[in-house]
């Protein structure tokens, strides 16, 4: 049987973990011997088919920032984002695929073929971003058997390596995203209650605040700009990151700034840093409260706070949590690696559920007693036209059918009615998002559902959505009177109806990533 792996495709760092013979996950170091690989890419100046990923890409960006890409996860699923290198416009999916290709390639050297994988994503990632992540894996040559939420993966690893029981709040502050997940844990039995997340809150935002302080200090002394080029920016971004790390251990960080108008020695105190990041930390605090409110739990009702992600090393993070919960957060497991390790466990559980016959006995017995109940990460609905009770007018509205945080597997139905006499078809739209306003939800897909002719208005259409543990959604639209049915599968691994342009784009992506020699 091929290896089963879990991948943490992070904003700043990525990691790959493999399930060993007894079902325990282990991190596989990259070709440089590092357990974490920077999620950075550099396109060779002579030959853009040669791509450097990882630490070499980080170092190379100081020399030519235009040919380097970082923090691509922030743009995942954004249809408008393109990075032009020479004549090629690279999409976030392709760029992520290059990082995954590097992880796969490095791990294969010692462990043979890497194929079946689960990739982790932030809990708040929507359908589009999840699908994009899955596509990146496929383009990189992986068989992506599932997607797991990062805090769930971390908690999975945590609960299988520590004695845990009660309500656990997973506080996952990574390089680029923030998630908070509340779950009920009883030994190896884990039930997710709810998740909240911020797509633009993480270590790189804290680095940015330090960079702003440096720029301000330099400007005050020399009345000149510290940063004059993309390469300068890349260099000082790294300096800022270094200062941040230092301030997690010490009260003061000292640096020399070698700017165009002269050099200067700067001292950044932890107090200055904490003041600068305070608005960002406020956002994290609110999300913790929003999640607690969603779960209907008071802070005192949380038994353990589990820290995940490198940014949780910042003392202010821990202090703020201690103030809210009245207890010290747990940092027992490796905050940088636990997501990848948990993702491998999740991959094992998925394989055990889908293909139990081919699972080696050692892995099966290692995973057998783990029971994970996940939830719907978003609400799913459809667009309808009810009459507004207040105005008596028909309004176009999103009606939620499957509510966010419903335990999986789940199914829910609602009945709607045709509007017009002789209505020959109904446009059915599947939406993702909260609330009734159609402008504020995302349309996942729209189909035409043909109806029998010559019928009066108000014929019932029953809409049923179901969501399984593999995050596959099944939508059924049923014309009750005729029994006519339209069924749509919206699994992350299913493309549904692909347009010709989609197929063409996918081929181009496969060819671009396949052609690239990742080092």
């Amino acid at each position: 049987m091929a290896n089963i792996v879990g991948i943490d495709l992070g904003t700043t760092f990525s990691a790959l973990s493999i399930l060993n013979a007894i079902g325990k996950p282990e991190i596989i170091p990259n070709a440089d011997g590092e357990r974490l690989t920077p999620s950075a890419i550099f396109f060779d100046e002579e030959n853009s088919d040669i791509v450097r990923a990882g630490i070499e890409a980080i170092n190379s960006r100081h020399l030519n920032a235009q040919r380097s890409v970082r923090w691509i996860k922030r743009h995942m699923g954004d249809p408008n984002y393109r990075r032009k290198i020479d004549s090629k416009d690279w999409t976030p999916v392709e760029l992520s695929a290059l990082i995954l290709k590097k992880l796969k390639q490095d791990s294969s050297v010692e462990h043979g073929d890497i194929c079946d994988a689960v990739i982790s994503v932030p809990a708040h990632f929507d359908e589009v971003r999840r699908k994009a992540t899955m596509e990146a894996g496929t383009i990189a040559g992986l068989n992506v058997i599932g997607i797991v939420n990062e805090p769930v993966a971390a908690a999975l690893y945590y609960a299988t390596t520590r004695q845990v029981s009660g309500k656990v709040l997973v506080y996952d502050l990574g390089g680029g995203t923030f998630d908070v997940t509340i779950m009920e844990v009883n030994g190896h039995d884990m039930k997710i209650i709810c998740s909240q997340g911020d797509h633009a809150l993480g270590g790189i935002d804290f680095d940015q605040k330090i960079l702003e302080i440096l720029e301000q200090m330099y400007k005050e002394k020399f009345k000149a700009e510290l940063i004059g080029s993309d390469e300068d920016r890349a260099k000082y971004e790294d300096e800022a990151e270094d200062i941040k790390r230092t301030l997690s251990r010490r009260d003061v960080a000292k640096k020399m700034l070698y700017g165009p108008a002269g050099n200067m020695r700067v001292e950044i105190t932890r107090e200055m840093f904490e003041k600068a990041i305070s608005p960002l930390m406020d956002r994290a605090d609110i999300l913790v409260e929003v999640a607690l409110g969603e779960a209907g739990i008071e802070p005192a009702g949380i038994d353990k706070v589990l820290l995940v992600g490198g940014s949780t090393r910042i003392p202010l993070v821990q202090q703020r949590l201690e103030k809210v919960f009245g207890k010290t957060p747990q940092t027992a497991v490796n905050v940088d690696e636990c997501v990848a390790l948990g993702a491998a466990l999740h991959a094992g559980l998925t394989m055990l559920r889908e293909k139990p016959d081919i699972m080696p006995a050692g892995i099966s017995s290692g995973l057998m007693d783990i029971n994970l109940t996940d939830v719907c990460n978003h609400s799913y609905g459809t667009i309808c036209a009810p009459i507004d009770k207040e105005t008596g007018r028909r309004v176009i509205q999103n009606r939620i059918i499957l509510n966010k945080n419903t335990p999986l597997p789940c199914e829910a139905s609602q009945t709607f009615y045709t509007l017009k006499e002789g209505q020959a078809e109904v446009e059915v739209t599947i939406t993702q998002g909260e609330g009734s306003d159609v402008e504020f939800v995302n349309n996942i897909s729209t189909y035409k559902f043909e109806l029998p002719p010559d019928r009066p208005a108000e014929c019932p259409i029953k809409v049923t959505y179901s969501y399984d543990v593999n995050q596959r959604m099944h939508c059924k639209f049923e014309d009750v009177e005729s029994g006519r049915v339209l069924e749509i599968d919206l699994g992350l691994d299913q493309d549904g109806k692909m347009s010709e342009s989609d197929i063409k784009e996918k081929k181009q992506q496969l060819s671009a990533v396949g052609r690239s020699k990742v080092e």
Partner: protein
Amino acid sequence: MPVISPGFIGRFRLRVLDYWTKLLEMVDHTVFRDLANQLRMPEKFGKVKSRFLHQAQPDRVQESSPPIDMGVLNCRVQWTKLEEDNNVFDAFSLEICGLIHAPNDMCETTLQISILDVTDGAPDAKVVQSRLPQWSSQDGPDPSAFCYRARLGKLPHQVTTLSDWTSIAQIRFDWLLFPRKGKRQLQFNTSILPADSNQELAHAKCEFDCENPAFGYMNLQENIERTNILAVALAFAVSAADNKLYDCEVELIKNWARDNILENSASDKDELKLDKALEKTIVFFRGGNKLDTYNICDEIVGIAPVAQRYDILELCLYVAQSKGSVTAEELTFLKNMAEWLEVDTNRFRIMMEKVLPVDMHEVRDVEAILGITSDMSKERVRKHLNKEYGKWNSRVTNADPNIQTQADQMLNLIAEARSQYTAEAIVS
């Protein structure tokens, strides 16, 4: 919405521009404004509200006493109470007596009742309309006219005489839509027809006076048109709130006026009249003049349903939006207007969020944007802001980049407001 005859619309349209002239006379003298402000007492609002929502039962004005000639068919009407599904409704009870000629014995018959409003005299009689489709005269000249049809049964003889008043129908008052509000004189027309033809066997009519407490269909149409005029006035007032009338604002208002005040079939002359009225209004506002907007809103509340008030507010929001930013004066004006139009605060806030995203506000009124009110405790503010945060956080990944930006800005605003308003109310 009741359908009215095109002739009526035509006649009414001539009055539209007269309204405008009156409107322009409402120049906001300080004394008048002060007086208006003084009138803004709860009692006043209560009165205004009840004016529109009032759906009182009809007063008994008169019971009919028709002359009886037993050689013909007679009818009379009386008030009665009808009990249906545990509810009691006021109704007209119709009775007949006298002679009916049929083509043969045991003739199967149908009863048909229609009602005319003859308050303004027989030549100006107007139909009473039906609120229910089943009692509409679907095949008649006016499809919305009330027409009650029911099986009457078999007449035993070719000549049948009903010597006593016989009850034949009870018509609920709330099924009917009268032309106008107030004291009405109704003419009930009762016909007896063979079941298989429209050849009338007998006919009787009687008159009956009653009080209609609700707006009639002519009032409603007039109210719609009057409200549209007032809406244009308010839209100009919003535009002029910052003492500047931008061309884009004027253009938007003009287009709205043309779409909503002129019918599709409007003549060039009508269009010209409207344009002249609009130009006159623009000059009025460019001259630094103001309207008494409180009184305009007060009038609208009295005549317009909530849906139309939302339309007005939406128009005014789009006027404020059209130049790309909204001034503090315009925001204050809109806020007051929403209050005076008795639009729910939350509904107004949702409308604002959609039309005037926060980056358009030249001055940010955090409380108004986030729905924080002075009566909220710190704990309530915290919970309210958490809810708002959750709402906007789910919009950050919206497919529309403008909504993404708006959501980001709202999250920052909420985070700022939270530290400002709930500094001491951290979770314990």
